[in-house]
């Protein structure tokens, strides 16, 4: 196991290097620059600002310099927010995304597993069709529709919550539901699929034949194998959830990191783009590693591979 983790860890180094390199050159190839504004700035002032941030150096030299800074853990200054560094912005914005993501994950797992298990146990009954149809709708209804609908119902009409913001405990409810519902729908469908496959296996029939009760069969024998697809799905999904959702953060005014992924590219905030891309990449890699470890633990077959 240790060798497996060490090997996977070493593999991440070239992956991050390639991502950083691709991000650097793709960003610089995009037309327009960080200092272009509606009211154009005199060329010499633009040149001075570029020099201040080292953007006047040859491109390859800039690339080497940025790689050096990245190795030192210095993500650089933000062009859009001149008084702040990218490290500071990520440190400021990430906690809100992390919290929202964790709450949405709880919603997704609670709703998704319950619906998926019920459906798989009552296959082809109303308790299967109804949650699965709703899950399909949940997948199809985008968050930018779900969010305003929930706000309209629970904030504007019933007046139970604020329409947006991130200050009080109750401000967490609607964004977590909006973001969680979408993932819950996937979890429900994957759980149902995985469980149905397992429930038809011989060893389940054997367990039943030996007189094991329904709950024992379900939780001791079936669930471990049945949720494997969910676990595989959760790796990248959790990375996406925890690092922030642009749409949900925008609709609910959540001061998270998700917005920066999008706006930094629009602003040509080069260092911010690099910082947020690498941050997300590290998250995806680490969580995929965690998922692989969990899968090996859950599925004895994988230990031989």
């Amino acid at each position, binding site marked *: 196991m240790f060798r497996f983790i060490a090997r996977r860890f070493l593999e991440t180094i070239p992956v991050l290097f390639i991502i950083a390199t691709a991000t650097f050159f793709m960003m610089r190839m995009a037309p327009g620059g960080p200092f*272009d504004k509606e009211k154009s700035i005199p060329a010499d002032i633009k040149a001075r600002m570029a020099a201040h941030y080292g953007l006047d150096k040859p491109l390859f030299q800039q690339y080497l310099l940025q790689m050096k800074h990245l190795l030192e853990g210095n993500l650089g200054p933000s062009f859009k927010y001149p008084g*702040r560094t990218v490290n500071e912005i990520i440190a400021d914005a990430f906690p809100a995304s992390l919290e929202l993501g964790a709450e949405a994950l709880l919603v997704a797992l609670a709703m998704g597993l319950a619906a998926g298990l019920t459906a798989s146990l009552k296959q082809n009954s109303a308790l299967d069709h109804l949650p699965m149809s709703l899950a399909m709708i949940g997948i199809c209804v985008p968050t930018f529709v779900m969010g305003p609908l929930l706000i309209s119902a629970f904030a504007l009409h019933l007046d*139970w919550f*604020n*329409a*947006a913001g991130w200050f009080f*405990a*109750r401000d967490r409810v609607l964004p977590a539901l909006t973001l969680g519902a979408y993932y819950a729908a996937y979890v429900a469908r994957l759980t149902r699929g995985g469980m149905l496959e397992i429930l038809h296996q011989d060893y389940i029939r054997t367990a039943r034949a030996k007189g094991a009760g329904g709950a024992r069969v379900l939780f001791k024998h079936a669930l471990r194998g049945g949720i494997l697809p969910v676990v595989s799905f959760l790796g990248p999904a959790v990375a996406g959830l925890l690092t922030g959702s642009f749409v949900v953060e925008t609709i609910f*005014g959540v001061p998270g990191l998700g917005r920066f992924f999008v706006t930094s590219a629009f602003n040509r905030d080069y260092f911010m783009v690099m910082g947020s891309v690498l941050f997300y990449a590290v998250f995806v890699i680490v969580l995929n590693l965690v998922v692989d470890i969990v899968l090996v633990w859950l599925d004895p077959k994988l230990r031989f591979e």
Partner: protein
Amino acid sequence: MYFFLTRAAIAACFLAAVTGCGRRETLVQVGDREGMLRIGNGAEPAGLDPQVDTGEPEHDIMITLFEGLVDPDPRDSSPVPGVAERWDISPDGKIYTFHLRKNAHWSNGDPVTARDFLESYHRILMPALGAEYAYMFYPVANAQAFNEGKITNYDEVGFKAPDDFTFVITLDKPTPYLLPMMVHNSWYPVPISTIKKYGALDDPSNPWTKPGRLVGNGPFLLKEWKINSHILVVRNPSYWGANDVRLNSIYFDPEENYDTAERMFRSGQLHIDLQAPPSKVAFYRKYKPNLLNDYPLLSTYYYRFNVTKPPLNDKRVRQALAMSIDRRAICETVARAGEQPIFCLTPPNTAGYTAKAQLKEDPAAARRLLAEAGYPDGKNFPTIDVLFNTGAGHKPIAEALQQMWKKNLNINILLRNEEWKVYLDSTEHMDYFIARAGWGADYDDPSSFLELSITGGGNNQTGWGNPEYDRLIEVVSHTQDQAARYDAYQKAEAILVDEMPVLPIYVYTRPRLIVPDVKNWAPNPLDIYDYKAVWLEPQH
């Protein structure tokens, strides 16, 4: 969906029960009680350094933290006493002597002196700072040369502080709009010793503006600043006019999404939403007019013609395009936020100036002009396109114009949509035929618009130039005689309307939503707010 909504409802009920449900006191009501004004400010400020940061959301906050020599009158943005309690102007209009009030203080208790202004203006002119608005200081003797690094001795620049409470500005030539210009945040004093504590004076990313560090001289103090969440300023007890400030604090919410901010307004989280979504303006106008506050800005929406490319190098083609559209229809059925059609570049009543030269909408005359230019009934008209940037409703306007040109001139014009920075790159390099543009005045004077079209000006970007126009703006208009000055502008604007390097479409309005609890809030054409005079009064 029902399934999820049911569960959502159950969860919501539970939480509402835990957190106290039912008709609760809204944040606006809490604000009324505590004297806290809550504003949806439209964007996260890039920063709060008055010499570096330039946008409106930044200005809305900086005006609470700093005060210049002159202050804007909230009714019309005209200059009234600020740190300077009075000023004298020499008969030739070149020397301005400001007499500073003796009771003005920084928030750390130090007095605000003429030396502070002398050192602050030194900083904004430092070449390495790269201040975008350093150009506002160019009327001052030698300021441009210093900013461009041609001279390095700041003593040669026309700023002097003969004593602690007298500040003298010497100009190169009379500039009657100097005082209106000084209302802008780039003329605020900055706390030099504080800035030095946190880095180099000329470092634009010096982090001196963070809460706990920022020292200001305005009516409020920076208390909290959390990125994308909020900025909180509280009343500054050391401000010279603190007794007249009625609000205890102002809470700026930087929500960028128009719809989100409007929903926050509706759910009682904001007293003021500075930018209502255009799609909702008609609703508010009809059903809740007491909440809607819209006022034309000194800001024009127009199209640029690239006059270096045929067929737009022919004035008759430009005139035909400009005369064959229906601006009123665009304002009323496409833009729909209360915009006003405009037939010249400078919005009406800019510092009392309204252009006499006005473009006439006349499709028949436009067809004749197009025929004279060699394209009768649009025949053989080359393929050209309109460039606009993504978002902010530019596409429907471009489509409407495309239709109007097809109908009235029988020409096909293509549309080209580009992402914001790509669009800026294209217009700067003149890689377009017709391009959307917008211009808001930096100060209340026609020159803020008419200087745009000076030959080779950075924001001209049309390739157009006219020696007589340049002479009128750069030479003739620099006179103390107001009538002669405006006469020069009238002549210049007539040249612009005849030559038509730009196609004016409408004057922007800023539709805001304001609850009636907010008292003494004065809208003005430069969109500069005076929070000192505002108070809150709950509606019963």
